[in-house]
């Protein structure tokens, strides 16, 4: 059950856990991880506005907190997942939202996101085929003209890919299998020359807007929440710095597709690791950037409350991922933050805070 509040300074992303887009205010963006003996556990920050983190066994959560129907469903889905990386958690979250349990707008947004994932997968696959053909000097205007979704285009593609496999000294089936693996890993990040940036690249761009928004807000709205906003901007900036480096490295490796295919075992692991790192880096930020966008329509008092809410769930980088100890730095900010935090009403009264849930669902409808 409840192990009591602990100092929270995780070393790795896995130890930090993946953020779950629950709609119950107390559980919103809490993190889930595999703990001792691979048992799922959830990390709940600042319970009752205190310091530290509570580690709760996953199966005990429904007994501890009055959860929304959406969260009960999501809870059941996650417990069935083998792993709890950001990828699996996101798929489960979209599935729960698609069911309509976070409202019709969130359901529509989840359907759109799943469709976009499919489209991005197809686009990435197609662009990677072109990269491979280009790498072995087999660019074909006829194939491009016919289009990959026509019978003629597919026939030409198969023909060229067979020749590409020969050129790379591998079996065509193996080339296709490796292509599928790279496409699966690459689609969420997106290729450098893709006409539409991948989801994680868009996430990094949104984070830049968020950083600018927080910096501007802290300057324009002096008050208790201003240092909190400045801290949010600093954490965002630090994450952006690392993210841009990882993204650049990832794109360089993918662009060298010939060597990647030939030196498969090591090279693919490196590419997969970079993509996973990108996902972990941005994990939890889409809710934060989305919440800040939603808050733009509100007055400054509500915005200050949002800044404080976001501070509580800020994805601080684990110790091994960053040269700066943000956990330690956040303690200085907490002194100001504790004076102006929004009450977690449902925790105290046991009743659902309908307005708080609605705010979370509005974010889900924007950034599923």
């Amino acid at each position: 059950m409840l192990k009591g509040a602990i100092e929270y300074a995780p070393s790795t992303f896995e130890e930090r856990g993946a953020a779950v887009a629950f709609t119950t205010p107390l559980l919103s963006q809490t993190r889930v991880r595999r703990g001792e003996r691979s048992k799922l556990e959830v990390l709940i920050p600042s319970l009752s506005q205190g310091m530290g983190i509570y580690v709760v066994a996953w199966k005990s959560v429904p007994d501890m907190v009055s959860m929304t129907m959406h969260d009960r469903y999501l809870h059941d889905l996650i417990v069935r997942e083998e792993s709890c990386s950001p990828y699996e958690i996101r798929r489960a979250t979209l599935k729960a939202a698609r069911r309509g349990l976070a409202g019709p707008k969130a359901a529509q947004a989840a359907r759109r996101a799943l469709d976009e994932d499919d489209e991005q997968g197809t686009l990435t696959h197609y662009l990677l085929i072109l990269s491979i053909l280009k790498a072995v000097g087999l660019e074909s205007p006829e194939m491009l003209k016919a289009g990959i979704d026509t019978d003629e285009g597919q026939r030409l593609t198969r023909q060229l890919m067979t020749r590409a496999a020969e050129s790379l000294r591998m079996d065509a089936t193996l080339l296709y299998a490796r292509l599928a693996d790279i496409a699966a890993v690459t689609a969420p990040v997106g290729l450098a020359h893709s006409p539409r940036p991948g989801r994680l690249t868009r996430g990094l761009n949104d984070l830049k807007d968020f950083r600018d928004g927080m910096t501007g807000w802290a300057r324009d709205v002096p008050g208790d929440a201003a240092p909190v906003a400045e801290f949010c901007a600093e954490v965002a900036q630090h994450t952006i710095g690392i993210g841009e480096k990882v993204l650049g490295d990832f794109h360089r490796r993918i662009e060298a597709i010939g060597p990647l295919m030939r030196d498969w075992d090591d090279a693919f692991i490196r590419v997969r690791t970079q993509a996973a790192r990108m996902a972990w880096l941005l994990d939890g930020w889409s809710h934060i950037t989305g919440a800040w966008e939603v808050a733009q329509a509100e007055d400054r008092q509500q915005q200050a409350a949002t800044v404080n809410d976001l501070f509580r769930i800020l994805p601080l980088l684990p110790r091994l991922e960053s040269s700066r100890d943000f956990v330690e730095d956040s303690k200085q900010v907490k002194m100001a933050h504790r004076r102006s935090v929004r009450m977690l009403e449902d925790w105290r009264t046991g009743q659902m805070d309908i307005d708080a849930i609605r705010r979370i669902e509005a974010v889900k409808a924007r950034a599923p």
Partner: protein
Amino acid sequence: MSGPADGRGGGDRLPGLESRLFDIPEDKFIEVVRLLERVRDHPDVRQTFTAIRPRLVQVRPNRRPTLKRVLCMPFEDVLESFNGVDVPVGRIERRVIDPVWRLVTECGDRALIDQLDRQVQETAPGNLNALRNIGRRLWPMAAQAIQGAIRGVAGGAGEPDTGRQALWRVLQGDEEMRRQLQDVAAFLEIGLTVESLKDALAPKPLAVLDDLHVDAIEQAVQAVARQSAGLVYYLLLVAASRMANPADLLTVLNDLDFGKARREQPAIFAQLSGLVVTNLEERSARLEGKGCGTGHSAGQGEAAVAIAPEEAIAIAERLVASIDTTSAAMDVLADPAYRERLDAVKATVRTMVAGTVLDTASAGILTAVPAPAGNGCTAPVDEDAQAAAEDHARALRRCEGLAGALGLHEPLKDTLVSMEKGLMARAHALLADYPKAAGEPDDAETAEMNLFYALRLLELVAGPAKADRLRTAIMAATGEFAEE
């Protein structure tokens, strides 16, 4: 023929543009407004501006400055809104703007007006300081011109009887208009102080009046009192109109140092209190005018513009807060007549909430859950109806916060129980029908979606504990999480 009076119909002017201007992205909207402003004197464009005003109010693009707009700055906060129930305290009607402008241009200093007009045309939109500098010279002259005309004496360089004639043409026996012209002249007299107070009481509406705000009001009151004690009241109207709950001003008023208007302080308090009560009455009268204050008796035509349940609750929350604050602040006056008037306002709010949120709950919430088709077909999912039903359910739950003040405990309890039973019955009917759809993946998904949406409505109305029993039943029927 002119277009429809609601302003959104389009009529035969700039066909289709107005309705589209409500849907295009904000940056495009601002761009179109800029273009239209270049030809704003064209009658069609003027009508278009009237039609799109709700969005102009919402987006607030920096409009091209005009001298007429500068003239209105000191009283823009007390101008009546274009729609909605909220009315500023001591409001000035928008129909007064054109007559005021005519009086000022006919009776004011023509040379100065021409000079200031040229300056305005050279001023960039959003350059508030430049506009205030123009106002610094315009407002006193305009106030004098209006007062002169009212007194029957020509102001500025006009002929001796110009003012009287101009006023006669403007008023045509409209005494309410005459009163509002006098008010406008008072706001113009204190234009500069009003403008600096607006900066201190920003952004509008102020949810809470803190010490800095109170200090700013006190300093502004003292500055105006040095000018004339009679003008303090007008300054306070601007202050009240910038607050989310104007009655909050009453709670601090007696603690302010009015400076040279100290002797008038009790009279100003009584005057402002009376106005706050009148304002509440006016707002509640608008509720009735919107066809939501009479419950089931709202007519067909009125029903089309009736307030949505969530909006109704938001209005009710603001009004109840205002009534409570006013009531507490006015205890010092010990006037039973005010108490009765406030009780009458409360009764109107109660009727509005009952008529808009409680009486309509069945039609607003239950009908979103489709009945099983019966012929083996799956009922389609209607997400728009679901969204509206969810808003209604939330409004119902927010009613809990008002039930005590409005005496709605029992009706609310009855409605919640009836919704819970109705939703449960409809959900179980869908559940019983589910096996017919289960064989076909698309049908099964639609049927499950309908079940989950019903579950969500039940959760909103009755809370998660009660909804969880239905969730368990749905999961058992679909077998989604059945142990393998």
